[in-house]
C-alpha cells in the first residue's frame, strides 16, 4: 500500500505579488485596526483615499480595483501611518510597491506619463518656460544649466525606465 499525498497547487495571489516587491513584504500582517487611516492627513480630506481600504482590497485580491481606481497615487508619503502601525506594516512602502506594479501593468495616470516623457526628452519633470527663464535674473538667480541629458539617459536605460510603456494607445 503506497501512501500518497495530494499535490498542492500554489496559486500566486495578488498579496504574494505585492510581498515579492521591495517594500511590500509586510502587507499580510495587517489586522485592519484602522490606525493608519486615522493617522492619514489625506484620508481626512478625501474619501477617495484610505490606506486601510487599499490594504484590505489588496489582501482580498481585488487587484483591478486597487491598481486602476487612482487611489494609490494620492498618498502623500508622510509616513504617519507607518510610524504608528502596531503590526509594523510598512504602509507607505506598500503603496510604493503597488505603484510599481501599476506602472508595470500600464495603469499610469496621465500626469506621471507627462513627467516621465519630460524626464526622458528634456531631463526635467517640469518643462522650463520662457517666463521662468526671464524671471530668474530678476531674482538674482543664475541661468539654468543644461540637464545632462546623456548621462541621465544612461541611468534611465540601466534601470529599465525607458522601456516602460508610459503612454498606452488610445489613452488621452
Amino acid at each position, binding site marked *: *500500500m*503506497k*501512501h500518497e*499525498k495530494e499535490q498542492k497547487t500554489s496559486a500566486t495571489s495578488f498579496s504574494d505579488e505585492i510581498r515579492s516587491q521591495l517594500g511590500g513584504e509586510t502587507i499580510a*500582517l495587517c*489586522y*485592519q*485596526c*484602522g*490606525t493608519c*487611516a*486615522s*493617522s492619514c492627513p489625506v*484620508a*481626512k480630506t478625501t*474619501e477617495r483615499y*484610505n490606506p*486601510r*481600504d487599499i490594504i484590505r482590497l489588496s489582501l482580498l485580491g481585488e487587484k483591478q480595483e486597487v491598481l486602476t481606481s487612482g487611489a494609490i497615487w494620492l498618498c502623500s508619503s508622510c509616513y*504617519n501611518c507607518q510610524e*504608528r502601525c*502596531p*503590526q*509594523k506594516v510598512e504602509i507607505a512602502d506598500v503603496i510604493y510597491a503597488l505603484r510599481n506594479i501599476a506602472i508595470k501593468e500600464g495603469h499610469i495616470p496621465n500626469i506621471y506619463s507627462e513627467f516621465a516623457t519630460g524626464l526622458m526628452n528634456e531631463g526635467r519633470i517640469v518643462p522650463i518656460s520662457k517666463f521662468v527663464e526671464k524671471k530668474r535674473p530678476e531674482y538674482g538667480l543664475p541661468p539654468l544649466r543644461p540637464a545632462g541629458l546623456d548621462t541621465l539617459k544612461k541611468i534611465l536605460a540601466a534601470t529599465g525606465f525607458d522601456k516602460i510603456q508610459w503612454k498606452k494607445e488610445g489613452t488621452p
Partner: protein
Amino acid sequence: MEEVKVGVFLSDCGKQLAEILDFKALTEHVKKVSGVALVVRGNEFWRGEGLKTIVDAIKSKKINRLVVAETLPKLSEVKIVKAAEEAGLNPYLVEVIDLKDHCAWPHRDAPLEATEKAKAMLSAAIERAKLLEPLEKLEFPAVKSVLVIGGGIAGMQAAEDLADLGFEVHLVEKAPFLGGLAARAGRFFPTDDCAICIQSPASDVKAITHTSRKCVYRSGFSEIPNLNILTNSKVVKVEGVPGNYKVTVEKKPRYVDESKCVRCDLCTTVCPVEVPDEYNAKLKTRKAIYINTPPVHPPVYVIDESACKFQECAKCVEICPTKAVKLNQKTEKLTLNVGGIIVATGFKEYDPSVIKEYHYGEYPDVITNLELARMIDGFGPTNGAIIKPSDRKPAKRIVFIQCVGSRDRRWNPWCSSICCMISLKNAMLIKSAYPDTDITICYIDIRTTGREHEYYYEKAREMGIKFVKGRPTEISHDPDGNILIVDVEDAILRRFFELEADLVVLATAMVPSEDTKELAEMLGIELDQDGFFKEYNAKLRPTETKIRGIYLCGGATFPKDAPTSSLHAHSAAVKTAKFLSTGKIIKDQRTAFVNEEYCGDCEFCPVICPFNAITLVPKGEDHFVAQVSDLKCEGCGICVGTCPVNAIELRHSRPNQMEAQMNALLSVNGTSKPLILAITCSECGHTAVDSSGMAMMQYPANVRVMKVPCTGILQVHQFLQAFKAGAQGVMVVGCKTDGCHYEVGSQKAQKKVDLAKVLLKEYGIEPERLEMFHMVFIEGDKFAEAAQMMTERIEKLGPLQLM
C-alpha cells in the same frame, strides 16, 4: 565476571509475522550468534504463558541477558522489564525490539529482504545486550515541604491546597500584603464579585467549621497551621536539588509587630508624612504607616521605610496602645528547606507612557484599567466616584482604548487575553452606578472567548455601551473645557470620529512581573520569547518546568483571569504533591558519568546541559572536573555529544554498545540497494518509525534503524564510523527543533550534521550521503518518504569510495 548468557525470545505475533518473515531462518541465525544461550519462538511474550517462559528462564539461571522481539514494544517493554526484574534480572539488561512495525510491515512486499533485515536487527540487539551493564536504582530524600513564590490568587490557592494535603508550605510575597494584582482589581468577571475570593481551607471538609467556602476574608486562610505566610519577603538564593532545596529568603522589616497590632488606626492619625498612594493609582495620599484596604492578609499596618522619619518622629510608637510599632526591626534572612518550589509571580500592567501618541503620564485624565479599578472600588481613593484626576470633576464621557501596547509588534506582540473582559467589566460597573455616563470602547477585535464571557459582551451592548471598531491614532488635549479628543476611524462606517472624553482608559498590555528574569536564572528555568516563565510542555505539562520539582502557575506563564489562575494553581499543587508525596525520589541510573582522567578545565557540558545537572568541582590546584548529579540528569547525552575529549558517557548508551549495534545492523545487507543507517532519537524520531510501520507505509529494507536516547548525543566521528561500518548513507532522525524532549538536542544534532557535511567533503565523501530529518510521532509518512528519498539519492551517487 559472570559469563554472558543471552536469551532471545521471538514473537511471531500470532503467526501474522511468520507469513512475511522466515522465523525458522531467524531462529537458526540467532542460535549461531555467540553468547546466545536460549532461543524461544512463540508469541505474546509480554503476558500470560509467554511472559512465564521468560520468567522461568531467568529464574532457572539459564540466561542473564534478555532480548525480546515483540510487537508494540512501547507497551510490552514495561511489562517485560517489570517481570524480569521480579524474576531476579537487573532491569537494565533487557533489550526489546519490534520486528513488526520496524521490519515486517514496512517491507511486506519484499519478504526475503525483510528476513535478512530482521537478522541484522536481532544481531544488533544481541550484541548490545551482551555489552549492557547492570544499573542501580537510586533513592533520594524529598522534603515534604514546599515554597510558593507569589501571594496573589494563584499562589494563595496553590499554597492552600498543599497545606491542606499536609505539606509544610512557605508562601513568600514581596509586597507587604497578600492579594497581588487581584486585590487591586476589586471585582472580577464574569461574576462581578470580589476579586480576592479563594476557596477556603479544606479543614472545613474534615470538620465543617465557621469558615466560608469561598471568601478569603472569612476563609481562615491564614489560620492553616502548616502554612507559613511571609509577606514583605523576597527569595534571594536557591541552592540544592529537586526534593531538597535550600532557599534563602530576605524578610524586610514591617516595623509593626504582627502579633500585637489591633488595627485601631491611631498611628495614621498622628503620622505627619503624606506620600502619594501608589496602590490607589496616586489618586490619594497615604501616611508613612498604612494598610491596604480591603485587607487581605495580614490585617496589620506596615511602615514605608522610604517615607518614614523613624526616630526623628516616632509619634506612632508613642500613641500605639499595644506597643506594636517597632522601629528597630531589622531585615531578617531565613533559610528554608523545601522539596519543591511553585512559581506564582503573576504579571503586571505595562507602562503605556512609551506610546507617545496616547500621552499617558502627561495628560492626567489618561489612565489605565487598573487605575480605573481603584476608582470603581468603594474602598478606593474616590469611594467609587468616577472622576477626572486633573480637576476631580465627575467623568461623564469615557473612552476605552483596547490593545494598548499589546498585539503591537513595536512593544508586546502578544494578546494579553483578559483586557477585553476587563474593559467590559469596568464599563458595565460604571454604567450601572452612573447610567448617564457615555461610554465608548474602541477595539480592534473583541475577544470574549471564555465561559459566559460572550453574555458579558451582550449585556454591555444592551446597557448602551458604544463600540467603535478602530484603534485610535492619537489622544489630544483641548485646554478649553479641559477635554480629551480621541482621533479614531470607525472601520465599519469608514468614517473618522473625534471622540470627546473626560477620561480615557487604556487597556494596557499585561507583561511579566518585575524580577522574572532574575528569578528564572536563580531557579535555572527558562523564559519564553515574551519573557514569561516557560512551561515544560504547554499542551500536556502546563504547570511543569524542565526541572523536576519546580512548578509554575497563574499569570507567571501568561496573563490569566481568576478562574484560569485557580485551575492552574490546583494543577501545580497536585503536581508538587505527587512529586513529594512519598518523601523520596526513586531515580534510575540511566545517567551520564564523567571519566575524571580525561576531563578537565573546559566548560562545555555544564553550559550545554539543559537540566543544570552538571557542575564543575575542583580537582587539585587551579583545575576542575565536571560532576553529574544523578538526580538531575535526564540521560539525554547532549553532554556526551559536546565533550571534546570523550570524557563523558551515558551508562545506558556507551560508545562500545553503540558501535557494536551499528556494526551488527550493517553486517548483513540482503537487498540489492545500498545500506542506509537511520539513527533515531528514542522520542519522536523512533516513534515516527513506529508509526510508519503501523500504517504499513513501505520503504526499502536497506534502511536500518538504530535508536539513541537523543540525537544530541551524536558526535561527528560517529557519522564517519557508520560509513566505515558499511553504511552508504546516514539519516539522523530527531524531534522538531523546537520540540526536542531535551530542549536543545535536535538543534545541536542538526548543527553537527551541518558541520559533518563540510568535513565529509574534505574526506572525499559526498555530503549528500548524510542528512538530518525532524519529525513527530504521527509523521510516519515523512519517515517512509525520507527513507525512500535517501535510498534513491544514494543509488544515484553510486557506491561509496572510502580512501
